[in-house]
């Protein structure tokens, strides 16, 4: 079962309590080519309401760290607590359930379901976790799409809109169940600069409204938009700068 999680409001009331607590996190991949350490003894606290960027060169372990924090992958060693929930103790199915209720994810390649309209894509997480009464979900999805500037495209399939619009829709989907934490893995990596700017503006707006944001990027200028920057190299956090 998914343990109770801090709501966004609770997180705002106690900003000193870290929302994300990572201790001694290691991830070792055993491949035919040999043993590879993607993460080496990483520890990290992220208070609620912080906008954190994770930067580093390709293969430095930043995406692996995000995969651990989102519960998409399991560490070899260490612990991860998000809002008091010990992620390591949850199985794959329960982690999915937990994510749906407490976490919004934005991927580099948008990952919208191609057979659902943008509005339905946004409604999907609400259906999966039973968020809001059934009849209120379409209106909330539309409101979120309006917030990202896509109200007019609500009935379009993902293939009918641009990459930037798809990513905005993905952000709207990430907000569907009003999670306190938003995790984005290279959210602008596949966008032109105007679209990338639009997405980052959205993130800044969400940050102002109290959301905790963890964003992986390889672009230093994008990282500057956060208020904290973690720099990774060779599976370790080598710099932790408040901006």
């Amino acid at each position, binding site marked *: 079962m998914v343990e109770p999680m801090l709501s966004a409001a609770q997180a705002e009331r106690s900003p000193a309590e870290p929302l994300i607590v990572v201790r001694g996190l290691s991830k070792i991949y055993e491949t035919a080519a040999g043993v590879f350490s993607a993460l080496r003894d990483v520890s990290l606290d992220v208070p609620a309401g912080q906008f954190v960027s994770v930067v580093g060169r390709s293969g430095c372990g930043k995406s692996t760290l995000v*995969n651990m924090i*989102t519960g*998409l*992958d399991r560490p070899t060693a260490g612990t991860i607590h998000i809002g008091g929930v010990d992620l390591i103790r949850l199985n*794959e*199915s*329960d982690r*999915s*359930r937990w*994510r*749906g*209720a407490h976490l919004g*994810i934005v*991927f*580099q*390649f948008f*990952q*919208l*379901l*191609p*057979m*659902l*309209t943008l509005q*339905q894509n946004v*409604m*999907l*997480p609400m*259906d*999966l*976790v039973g968020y809001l009464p*059934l*009849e209120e979900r*379409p209106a909330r999805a539309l409101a979120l799409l309006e917030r990202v500037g896509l109200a007019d495209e609500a*009935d*379009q*399939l*993902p*293939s*009918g*809109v641009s990459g930037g619009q798809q990513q905005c829709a993905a952000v709207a*989907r*990430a907000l*569907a*169940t009003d999670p306190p934490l938003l995790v984005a893995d290279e959210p602008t990596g596949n966008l032109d600069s105007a679209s990338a700017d639009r997405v980052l503006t959205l993130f800044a707006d969400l940050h102002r409204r109290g959301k905790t944001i963890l964003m992986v990027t390889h672009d230093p200028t994008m990282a500057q938009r956060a208020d904290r920057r973690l720099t990774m190299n060779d599976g370790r956090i080598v710099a932790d700068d408040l901006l």
Partner: protein
Amino acid sequence: MIYSRPTTRKVLGELLQHKSRTLLVVLSIAVGIVAIGAIAGTFFVLPTDMTQSYAASNPANITLVTDPFDQQLVDDLANMRDVGEAQGQRDVQVRVQLASGEWRPLRLIAVQEPGAGEINQLLPQSGAAQPRDRELLLANKAADHLGVGVGDRVTIELGDGATRQMRVAGIAMDVGSGFEGIVGTDAAYVTRETLPWLHASDSYNRLVLTVAGDADDAVHIRAVADKVIDRLERSGRQVYSRSEQLRSKHPLQNIITALLGVLGLLGVLVLFLSSTLITNTLSALMAQQTRQVGIMKLVGGRRSQIERVYLLLVGAYAITALALAVPVGAWVANRISRLAAEIINCPLSNPSPLALSAPALALQTIVGLGVPLLSALRPIRRGTRISVRRALSSDVSAAITARPSRLAHRLDRAAWIPRVLLIALRNTFRQKRRLALTLATLILGGAIFIGVLNAQAALNGKVESIGRYFGADVNLDLAQLYRTTRVSAEALAVPGVEAIEAWSSAKAGLLDERGNLIATLSVLGPPADSALVEPVVTNGRWLRPDDRAALTVNEAFLRRYPDLDVGSTVRLDIAGAREDWTIVGVFEFTGMDELVAYANQSYLARVLGQSGQSALYRVVTRAHDLASQRAVAAALDAHLSDRGLRVANAEAGLSFVESTTEYVGILITVLLIMAALTAAVGSIGLAGTLSMNVLERSREIGVMRAIGAHDGVIVSMVVAEGLLIGLMSFIGSTLLALPITYGLTQIISRSIFGSDAAFSLAPHSFGIWLGLVVLLASLASLVPAKSAARLTVREVLAYE
């Protein structure tokens, strides 16, 4: 040549690394090859073995029943021009006692040297090939029915009530026993010298002959039969019945040919299903290979080279499937052949359970290699046509439309439908071609299944309709004529007996204008007010109490003699009395094209000189189930025997219906095996489709996982898709089942009964298939659903 090693390694890699996919493709191909092997193996082996073993037994071309004659006449006839061999026979009706104490009728066939005769040669099965005097050579079916083996001693009750102990010297097979061998009286063979010991005349009363010259020329055989009859009549003997048979035409050949025709048709359908399944699977395989095709092209691979790689892969799948399917197909073919051979009483030339038929193997090889390669050609050509840029881009499988379809819009408005079900609904229709092929296989499999069960119901109905003419609970045949008043009084004293009717019966000769015998018919004489006959009169009327020399005839009369109709007069010879009879009605009666007529009992008895007497009684009991009928039959037998009345046979009325229903049931079982095969093809197709869908949508499943879909959601989404396809196919199956039901029913009915059966739809056939299709769809979905639920988000999205 530069590509030979990587090509081989790629093919091996595809085969070994993707074991589930390899299994799916190999199963898709193998199931079709098994079906082809099963049908072709039966098709090529059974009729040949049947015809050859029948011809090898030197079957009689002519059978005549006449006044008693001796061996001298047989020898004289054998010397006639155009006569090959001749043999005299005498039938003696006795009863044999089972271990349970029950008496069963037994037909003893006495010949000069049983087991050594030149005509209707018997195939020794066990024990002695020839019985000595006062010994039995038991027909194999009789041995099975009676539960008797070689060396056993059995008690025989003779017509006059005396009993004899006889040893079973051997068991032999009469390959020409035909329909009589299936539902008729059990038979055994004795020497002619045994006849006096059995209190029977040692003269013959049946003559069997082969013709010299062409034994497959019906005209020639008929001419020889005419000559022999002429010779017999000139010797002062009357011929009571005649029948002619071609040497190479087994008595049950029409039935077997019709059934194999049905099986062949099913085989073609299974082949079609199998090829659609293969096309489906390989199309999906090629879709998955798009990126690899792009990479191969990127590094210089020409389209023809890439096509060869995939054709090689398909060839490897096909050879693997062939290796697995050939022995299984041979095993199924041998099971079906053995089952059929047991029914029709024919030996198989190669009884090994894995005996391979060369033509069947050749067909399997052609189909097993040809169909997959041909089916794969289009998907491979389409798959390799793609440009490098498109193949390597990530949006190859993306939807090309910008807006959802009208149907999708309507579904969206149905807010009560959970989003997950909506996704399942949308997913179902995403690959329309694949869906159509999957539906086609399931619909056809279901329609055949329903059709076979409907045909069974119709044929059982047909058997029951035959029972309308045999409504008695107990058929009581006495060994001689008795006063009907005496028999009735004694029978009514037996507990459980409610009513009894005395019937008459006779074999009548149908004569032409010159008085020559042209056919033999059975004339049955129930009392005019009999409650035991519920005729289906198709023309004219049924018999009235005041009718004299009036007949109702079965439809076989009109088929054989189209000039005859209601009002026509036919000249009959009944026990030497030649008289004109008027046909007053035609009734529907099913029975191997034999001529059957009904006449009033009182008039027929008078013609036979048996007024007030009868040996044939029909009994009504209080309870009408088989067990009660058997109990009353045994009680009647015992009571009448105690009173000095000699019983030839007392048999439960439902026995005939039971044995015929059982016979139909065996045929239906064979057809159901084929229906099960088609259903298996359908379910494998569905499982394959769902697996392919899951494989193609792994990324979407991963995304759903990432945004909150737990195991239950993923599993229910895939199972819902499977169930939806299953239910859609059910609707199609019910519609397609109608013509299939009609076709199957009529083909089988005509081959067994010689006439059509009433079209019948059995609700249980639809219910069973609905249950099965839901079960199969659930099972077929379960594995793909579980593998979908096992997908972790990281694995699915890793390639990004």
